[in-house]
């Protein structure tokens, strides 16, 4: 199957900064893909190269197998939903949705039918004659989505689609977005700096840093097997043990830890264990991957509690424990353990 979008070794330079540095990436048809990274990592520039608002200095951009590197934005078969929504303020909701259809030369009747269909899809019925200024934040977001989807693109680009919404609305909209994406079968590429959002939405995601892609994969894989300290740290919480790797073992200040797979290189490396993979075991237990410490404090989070356990080396270990279990008091000596398969060794 041809990729709906692919970047072949693209770079983009702004003055002295290399915003995108030799990136290659493919998105499959119908896939929900997330470009994730901190601000300034180049994810937005990469998306704008797909839309046609930036031209790569090097490399090529392909849409559905066709080289579009030199094709201007208005002739590319993609649509984009802007972070600011960029709704035309002088046009009503239906005029906004119809804008792209008119440019495509559709008949009046077809346009009216398509606008009604999109308004229904985005739950904008009854608001068709409103101007953007008369809409709430959530309605504006849905109007922008309806406008971007009206031309039935095979690929939709979404720039921080949920960033302008408040927390409650964001969660509801996440599910709505996934629902629409599955129903239409359109490939969605979302740019976001919010790792929870990326993991919740995407089938696959790319974690970017300083213009380069650090790791691509399904959210669960990237979370469980981060390829670098940066990825581990950026996605979710983690415990980090620095040391010297020897095969699947790593010698740290807190003892020898064993990982599920051998380290990529011998020498300086870090072991990563997620807080929820750590469990309390009987005090003074012996064995591989057992650590002894003292409970520093505990934070109750409703569905779970987060403990901080001080290790003899001075490192503060974060241990998540699902709710319901009795709490462990401060200052209590405890032992925690984890399975080798839940530990990943990455290069420093």
């Amino acid at each position: 199957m041809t990729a709906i979008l692919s970047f072949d070794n693209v770079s983009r330079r702004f003055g002295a900064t290399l915003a995108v540095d030799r990136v290659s990436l493919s998105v499959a048809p119908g896939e929900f893909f997330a470009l994730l990274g901190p601000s300034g990592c180049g994810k937005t520039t990469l998306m704008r190269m797909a839309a046609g608002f930036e031209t790569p200095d090097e490399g090529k951009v392909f849409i559905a197998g066709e080289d579009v590197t030199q094709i201007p934005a208005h002739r590319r078969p993609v649509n984009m939903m802007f972070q600011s929504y960029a709704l035309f303020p002088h046009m009503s909701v239906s005029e906004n949705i119809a804008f792209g259809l008119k440019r495509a030369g559709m008949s009046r009747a077809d346009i009216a039918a398509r606008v009604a269909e999109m308004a229904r899809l985005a739950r904008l019925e009854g608001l068709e004659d409103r101007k953007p200024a008369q809409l709430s934040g959530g309605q504006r977001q849905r109007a922008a989505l309806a406008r971007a989807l009206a031309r039935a693109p095979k690929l939709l680009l979404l720039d921080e689609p949920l960033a302008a919404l408040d927390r409650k609305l964001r969660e509801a909209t996440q599910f709505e977005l996934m629902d629409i994406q599955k129903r239409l079968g359109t490939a969605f590429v979302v740019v976001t700096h919010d790792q929870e959002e990326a993991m919740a939405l995407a089938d696959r995601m790319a974690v970017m840093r300083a213009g380069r892609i650090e790791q691509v994969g399904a959210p669960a894989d990237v979370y469980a097997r981060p390829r670098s300290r940066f990825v581990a740290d950026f996605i979710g919480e983690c415990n980090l043990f620095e040391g010297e790797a020897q095969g699947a073992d790593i010698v740290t200040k807190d003892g020898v830890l064993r990982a599920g797979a051998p380290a990529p290189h011998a020498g300086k490396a870090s072991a990563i264990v997620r807080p929820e993979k750590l469990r309390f075991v009987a005090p003074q237990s012996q064995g591989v991957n057992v650590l002894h410490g003292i409970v520093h404090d505990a934070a109750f989070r409703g569905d779970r509690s987060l403990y901080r356990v001080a290790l003899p080396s001075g490192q503060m270990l974060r241990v998540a424990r699902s709710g319901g279990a009795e709490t462990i008091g401060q200052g209590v000596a405890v032992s925690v353990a984890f399975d080798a398969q839940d530990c990943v060794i990455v290069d420093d």
Partner: protein
Amino acid sequence: MTRKSRSLSWGERATLAAPYLWLLLFFLAPLLLVFKISLSKTVIARPPYEPTFTWSGGWSAWWDGAQKFSLEAWRGLVADPLYARAWATSIALAAISTLIALIIAYPFALAIARASARWRPTLLGLAMAPFWTSFLIRVYAWIAILKDEGFLNHALIALGIIKAPLAIFATNVAVVIGIVYSYLPFVILPIANALEKQDVQLREAAADLGADAWRTFLHVTLPLSLPGVMAGALLMFIPAVGEFVIPDLLGGSDTMMLGKVMWNDFFENRDWPAAAAGAVALLIVLVGPIVYFEKRQNRSVA
């Protein structure tokens, strides 16, 4: 959003009152005086109208004076064909000039608004540069350019484009040229301002939805700049209707614009009431569209 109203301090009240006081003293009061003169009758006296009011006569003298108010000047305004012609000429010349200025100013404004942030102040400064020279001198300069043996005719003849000089000076064409030239910066500035404020992403969104550069301009850039276009047009049209200096210097004896007719009434015919009535009528006619567009703009913003 609701905002709690709170009582203002005396300092705030005084600050807010200052501009109103200014307008009251230097705009409303003189205007009422002019309106009063428009209700008077011409007499050969000093001042050349009656009734006049003094503080010494007491209430009865004021009452007697008030009886003498008449609508003669206003009737003359409607009946005198000279005024009707002057109205038509003024509005036509101002409208044509405004239209031409809009067509010239829009590309200027677009170039300024789309220039890089580093160049924008320089370009705006250049658009304003003519204001560094006296308005009167600039209009006089146009006489030297437009007259029969002026620069323009010399240049055109030297280039072999025409054989005999064009008679532009002392015609309505010269007046239009003068008005367009003089008011152009007033049209460029509000349009440039409106264009500069437009979100770049709106143009990107239009391109994303399949609009080429021309359609993006036609359906997004232009309609969104219309408030600026309207402001520029009003800023130019209103003073241009009452323009006196330009038709006086560049126009011919048959160029009868309102400003000149009023000037003649006032200084040559010593018919102060007629000139005053003309001035008040002009104000009323021009205030109408201003209030209308102001209202419309407020509504579109809300």
